[in-house]
């Protein structure tokens, strides 16, 4: 067995364990920590796919920003609820639905004959990526920046204390 495939299995299993911890943990703070673990393992997967810029972005934005914001939200919305109330009473149906979705996706993946065009994957340099992002994809890039601005203003307006009730 190839060493890369071994690394892939280790990273993949840790990512899956983290994801299961997110959905199964009885403590919301542990859930957020498991989410962080899973997201960092996904960054490892990006490195295995030769997308190292995305790996850095993943750690910066997910590990640095999103998980911290989620921690703040968990802190600000602490309730004295019983841990049992974190889960829906119709949980068995959720298990059935997600297992059925996984079975469908897995069989489709296994039955499809993928036409792999590359034998040696290549790394995209930061310069090429940045140049393409600012020339060919300049308009979507600007729209994304407007979207972020709108989300920023919207979040402030919604979470602001007082205002119209």
């Amino acid at each position, binding site marked *: 067995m190839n060493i890369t495939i071994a690394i892939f299995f280790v990273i993949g299993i840790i990512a899956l364990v983290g994801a299961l911890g997110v959905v199964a943990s009885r403590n*919301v703070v542990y859930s957020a920590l498991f989410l962080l673990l899973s997201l960092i393992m996904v960054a490892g997967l990006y490195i295995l796919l030769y997308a190292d810029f995305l790996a850095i972005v993943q750690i910066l934005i997910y590990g640095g920003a999103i998980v911290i*914001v989620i921690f703040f939200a968990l802190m600000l919305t602490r309730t004295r609820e019983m841990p049992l109330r974190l889960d*829906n009473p119709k949980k068995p149906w959720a298990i059935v639905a997600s297992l059925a979705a*996984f079975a469908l996706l897995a069989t489709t993946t296994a039955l499809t004959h993928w036409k792999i065009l590359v034998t040696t994957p290549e790394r995209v340099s930061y310069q090429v990526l940045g140049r393409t992002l600012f020339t060919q994809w300049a308009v979507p890039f600007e729209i994304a920046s407007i*979207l972020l601005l709108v989300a920023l203003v919207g979040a402030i307006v919604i*979470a602001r204390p007082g205002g119209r009730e």
Partner: protein
Amino acid sequence: MIPLEYFLILSAALFCIGLYGVLARRNAVLILMSIELMLNAVNINLVAFSSRLAPSEFLGQIFAIFVITVAAAEVGLALAIVIRLYRNRTSVNVDEIDIMKW
């Protein structure tokens, strides 16, 4: 080289775990965390396809960057809504929030 199918199966598993979380959890913040898992699974798919089918165009990486941008905006807005909800109803349990249901 790691086969494409391994990445697809892994991302399908991550996506379905996230789906389970969205369906089974009642805390709004936990549902958001599960949505993040699902978005990540989609990103793995995009990058894996891009690196195995057309690595010179890296469209999948560009797309994943935009998905991450939208995910960041979504989390910011959704958590603002959750905090507002908690202030008005002292609960983030999505079962109890039925004012728009009739």
